[in-house]
């Protein structure tokens, strides 16, 4: 009996000794870029996956050495950033404003490493002092969402549309504000049903919320809810109403149901931002990407199911907004004002 227990122990010890023997012989010739995802994680076919596309472009087009980690809990952000910095990555991205605090802490500890964050920004004072190695990237989601509002209003037959949000926080409210302003710019009498599901990773909830909207006669629904929104698209497909995708081009999710997608070019942000940070004379700042910078916009023509008239109208607005002739409201509370001004 003793013997067999010794044997088991020996086996475990043997395993433990063999495993670390594998070498780590990567020579850092090319720049090394890594991403820390928030708890939403990969596979949302939306925001996080778009960031991943940007990372893959750096790898495929420029031959960069890339890596990533998906955080499991909010306590993971800091150690994950630290871990990648210690692994010797040159540029490390935090995807999502949830990482704002963690990046602030880790960027100070690793001043030689560059840190980028999507959907968040720091003050100019911080950029000038403690965070000289940080790039903030913000998108004007309200501008892109405005165009979706125009498309939705031009498409609805029931004069009722719906908006599904993940969690009610300012970055998501920008989608709501833009969408509402867009809808009401076409027709202020259209009813907009709003629902914040409280989750970004729960398709079942998205589906339930959409079912209820459709019962209340909504025939075009738009979401800013990550994975939760996949449930919205599923519900819309089952019941034959239009769905509008978000962040990535979601046309492929349901080709006959997705009217268009409010594309947030997170991949462009990651790609261009990385190149920017690798410049020797990089200065910490916030990069804001709106319609004028082609950071947000409509899905490509082959993914567009909206009528030519609706599309033309949306494009007309896009030009106006890009030229600065019209300012889209950022907060839902400002929306009614914006419409009356028009």
């Amino acid at each position, binding site marked *: 009996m003793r013997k067999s227990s010794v044997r088991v122990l020996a086996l*475990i010890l043997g395993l433990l000794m063999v495993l670390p023997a594998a070498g780590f012989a990567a020579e850092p010739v090319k720049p090394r870029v890594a991403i820390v995802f928030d708890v939403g994680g990969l596979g949302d076919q939306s925001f996080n996956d778009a960031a991943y596309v940007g990372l893959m472009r750096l790898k495929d087009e420029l031959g960069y050495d890339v890596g*990533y980690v998906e955080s499991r809990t909010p306590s*993971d952000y800091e150690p994950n950033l630290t871990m990648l910095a210690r692994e010797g990555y040159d540029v490390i991205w935090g995807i999502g404003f949830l990482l704002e605090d963690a990046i602030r802490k880790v960027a100070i500890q690793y001043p030689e490493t560059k840190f980028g964050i999507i959907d968040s920004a720091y003050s100019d004072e911080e950029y000038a002092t403690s965070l000289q190695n940080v790039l903030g990237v913000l998108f004007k989601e309200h501008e892109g969402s405005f165009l979706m509002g125009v498309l939705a209003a031009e498409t609805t037959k029931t004069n009722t549309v719906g908006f599904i949000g993940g969690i009610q926080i300012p970055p998501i409210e920008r989608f709501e504000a833009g969408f509402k302003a867009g809808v009401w710019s076409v027709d202020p009498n259209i009813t907009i049903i709003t629902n914040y599901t409280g989750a970004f990773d729960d398709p079942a909830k998205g589906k339930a919320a959409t079912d209820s909207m459709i019962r209340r006669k909504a025939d075009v629904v738009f979401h800013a809810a990550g994975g939760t929104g996949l449930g919205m698209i599923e519900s819309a497909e089952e019941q034959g109403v239009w769905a509008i995708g978000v962040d990535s081009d979601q046309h492929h999710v349901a080709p006959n149901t997705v009217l268009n997608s409010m594309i947030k070019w997170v991949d462009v942000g990651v790609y261009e931002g990385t190149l920017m940070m690798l410049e020797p004379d990089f200065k910490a700042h916030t990069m804001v990407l709106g319609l004028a910078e082609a950071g947000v916009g409509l899905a490509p023509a082959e993914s567009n199911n909206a009528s030519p008239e609706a599309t033309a109208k949306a494009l007309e607005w896009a030009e106006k907004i890009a030229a600065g002739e019209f300012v889209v409201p950022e907060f839902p509370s400002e929306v009614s004002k914006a419409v009356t001004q028009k």
Partner: protein
Amino acid sequence: MTTNKKWWQPLAIPIIAIILGLLIGAVLMLLTGANPIAGYAALLRGSFGSAIDFSETLIYINPLIFTGLSIAVAYSAGLFNIGAEGQIIVGMLASAYAGYAFAGLPRLLHIPITLLFGMGAGALWAAVPGYLKAKFGVHEVVNSIMMNYIALHLSHYLVTGPLQDPKTTLPYSPDIAPTARLWRFLSPFGDHFRVNTGIFIAILAAILVYWLLYKTTTGYEIRAVGFNADSARYAGMDTSSAMAKAMLISGSLAGLAGAVQVMGVQFKFLDLFGFEGFGFDGIAVALVAKNNPFGILASGFLFGTLHRGSQTMQAMAGVPKETIGIVQAVIIFIVAMEGLVQGWIPGLEKITSLFKKKEADV
């Protein structure tokens, strides 16, 4: 019977489960095009490779010990506390609140008060399903699951409203006062050492739970009810009260997990986009340890290491984090169907039959 047991015998199944789990993980890595040796090397290096790595691994282990103990206490009374997840959330909320709202208290007072807030909130959250079970026999699983969702959505509301840090529009609470923070005893070596006295609180909790369950009358009653509620009642025990006590202790342990997470690691409540999983993982921790408080220290160590490993393997070796989820699942699976597995593995049967022979001899 127990006198004849070798010390390692209860370890046999968990160890086999771990080895099989890791082997299946290796096969998965091969199938998905990753290198299992590099993967597991990243797990070991990322968990134990340096002082800072080990410090982070302890951070992962810490809440799992509490939730493992929480599940074990409830299970001793025959109750299945699926609600640890929600109890952690309210524990985090309450201690985050006590941490900043009572700023100005001396450290010696502030830390225990903040811990008690977390424990109290957890206990309160567990009291609802506990009361319904003890009073009306409503199944605690259903109720504690529902309480999880109430906790999650309550936290969304609070952290975007009353508890939100006024300096920001983002969903988190203000930093807790320095007097409410647990001591990061390695911080003299660098700010990034987050390991804190919470790990000692966890070890202390394991000792206390052992003492409670096996050395006190209350513990005896709890275990008697768990073993057979009818005979416990026949023996004159107040089964409702024993169940309620077990549930309250279970809830306060889960609440403590949340409190330590706030007071030692996060220093604030950060909005959750979903459940963190410490409560659910606690079920696995307790299961693998067979509800033994000291076993929970060991299985908490294992699952915490795997949790940390899922991150380091992804960062260092490109192994999807789900791989470790599958490894965990295999371990749980094998431990859960112990009887079946013993039949599968010829060596094990021999070992157990040897035991039986010896028992017969004696």
